């Protein structure tokens, strides 16, 4: 064997080093392709983040709305209770008016929920709008209870019944608590589905796949590089979302096992990538891959509860959403991020997501082609 022959064969002999190099080289290519493509950056990072900010602002305060009441003139009943903190008045937002007609106009327009004034003989007059029935009921109930309390106080009698109310763990979901995992899941699905499908379609179309096939690297190396890059992208999305959601303005509070969102996101990335593998194997062009991806991601996001909570959706819709991987990220992520959920909440979701990965990848493999010719 001559010296040049030896030089030629040495890379193949040194198999371990070669594999490491090819893996690093491929990962770098994919990462650079992602970072340098403004369109991809926008759709996987900026757009979902814009949704988070937009929905966060829209829904902000939705869960803590006060009942707004106008106090026309002096109302002894209200003044009497005003000093008590945490008293019945804490749910009322009271504005003082001198002009009854002006206040009445505001009630009619729905800007105020009710108008309280004092009639003769200690009569408390409440006027409200029926426009919002829930608010109408609430304002009646509150004012009525105020009257009862005041009556009871003035009679100096010991009440026969007392109410002992105490707070339990707050299970009600604030918008940011479902918006964060929902929109994060949407972002991760966009990144992973598009990452896998566009790599496949573009590389096939530009004959890069064929060129790779003629290089001494295994399909496993290519897949591993793609998985690592997609996971890096997904974790970057996660970090960005959690950082923004925890800003004082949005007010997400993480609970103890929030880190479980990391393995959840990794499993979900694999599941979404297998969707991209399937569309990338079926589609002949970027345009048709894009169409297929949107056709899957958008319904999956709505049905999976990425934008709006599904609690009030009809049960058949819930059943449909169970056939799509997204909800198995959103629900466990919601639980572990801010509702004190633990491993028991995350594990089933992770298992189901990995199940999706296996099944979808197997289907994709059947349609896979190195070449479009």
């Amino acid at each position: 064997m001559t010296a040049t022959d030896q030089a030629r064969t040495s890379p193949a002999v040194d198999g371990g080093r070669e594999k490491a190099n090819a893996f690093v080289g491929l990962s770098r290519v994919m990462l650079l392709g992602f970072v340098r493509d403004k369109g991809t950056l926008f759709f996987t990072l900026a757009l979902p983040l814009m949704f988070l900010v937009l929905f966060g602002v829209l829904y902000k305060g939705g869960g803590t709305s006060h009942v707004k009441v106008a106090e026309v003139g002096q109302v002894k009943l209200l003044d009497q209770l005003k000093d008590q903190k945490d008293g019945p008045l804490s749910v009322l937002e009271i504005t003082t008016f001198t002009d009854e007609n002006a206040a009445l106009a505001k009630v009619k327009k729905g800007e105020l929920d009710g108008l309280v004034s004092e009639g003769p003989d200690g009569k408390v007059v409440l006027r409200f709008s029926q426009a919002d029935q829930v608010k109408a009921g609430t304002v009646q109930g509150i004012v009525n209870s105020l009257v009862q309390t005041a009556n009871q106080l003035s009679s100096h009698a010991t009440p026969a019944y007392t109410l002992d109310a105490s707070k339990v763990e707050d299970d009600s979901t604030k918008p940011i608590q479902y918006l964060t995992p929902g929109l994060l899941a949407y972002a991760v699905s966009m990144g992973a589905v598009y990452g896998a499908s566009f790599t496949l379609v573009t590389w096939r179309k530009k004959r890069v796949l064929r060129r790779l096939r003629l290089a001494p690297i295994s399909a496993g190396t290519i897949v591993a590089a793609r998985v690592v890059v997609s996971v890096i992208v997904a974790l970057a999305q996660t970090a960005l979302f959690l950082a923004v959601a925890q800003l004082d303005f949005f007010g997400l509070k993480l609970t103890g096992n929030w880190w479980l969102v990391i393995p959840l996101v990794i499993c979900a990335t694999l599941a979404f990538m297998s969707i991209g593998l399937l569309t990338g194997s079926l589609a002949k062009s970027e345009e048709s891959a894009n169409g297929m991806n949107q056709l899957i991601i958008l319904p999956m996001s709505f049905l999976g509860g990425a934008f709006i909570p599904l609690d009030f959706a009809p049960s058949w819709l819930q059943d449909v959403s169970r056939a799509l991987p997204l909800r198995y990220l959103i629900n466990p992520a919601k639980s572990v991020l801010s509702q004190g959920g633990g491993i028991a909440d995350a594990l089933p979701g992770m298992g189901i997501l990995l199940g999706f990965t296996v099944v979808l990848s197997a289907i994709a493999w059947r349609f896979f082609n190195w070449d479009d010719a």
Partner: protein
Amino acid sequence: MTEAITADGIRKRYGDVQAVDGVSLSVSTGEFYGLLGPNGAGKTTTLEILEGIREADEGRVELLGMSPWPRNAKLLPRIGVQFQASAFFNKLSARETIRTFASFYGIGPKAADAMLERVGLTESAGVLTDKMSGGQAQRLSIACALVHDPELVFLDEPTTGLDPQARRNLWDLLRDINAEGRTVVLTTHYLDEAEILCDRVSVMDHGKVLKTGAPAALVREIDDTVRIRVESGMLTVDRARDLLTAAGAAFSNLEDDGTTLALSTHAPGPVLSMLAEENALRGLEVRGATLEDVFLQLTGREYRA
């Protein structure tokens, strides 16, 4: 000398089309070999079967003593393949592209940069591949095929779409590659290119090899009519015919289109001396048969899609 490639009776059918219909060929180590043929002749499919991208329906192929199908990881580092369309990654510069390809073969960035230098792309190393000119892209594509120092190189129409300067530039590169002892297999539409570069060519059509040999030998084999042209106005057609007949020179297709007086002959000697005596040599052109004539004679003149 050992054979770098031997193919024996390879066939490939796509549906109703018999793309390759019993091709046998052999290429010696260190040879510059050309595969010629009109569009749809089966060149590309033949090349793909040799490279190991496609499986032949029938027949046997050996590259460097090994079978290229199924995918043979031992063989891959020893062959280099350049495709018609530039197979580059998105959003990568020339330097990043060749370094990536080098990494697949365990080759470091220094050697990759040296190859870039060799094809004259050092100055445009930072240019994104989709912003490169046709010539630059072709040179990068060849560099990527050579970066791992292969013994056997396949080039599929490497000069298509290049301007004359870029083509000649690339020819020099290809000659150097071959001079270093590498076996080169080239497909091309340009017969002048094949004539200049190749030691041996095969002309293919309808999935078969019609003729194989050194370009000069193939040209000599065909009816070697010489076409002679001079400026018109120095000699009338009638006078030329009379003088030639008197001299006993055989000729045909004597015509004058107003700018050029032209004729074809098997015996250019008497015709040229007649023209010299008449002092009618201005604008003289003497053109013998070329590989193009061989090609057209073998494959016909009808238009191919």
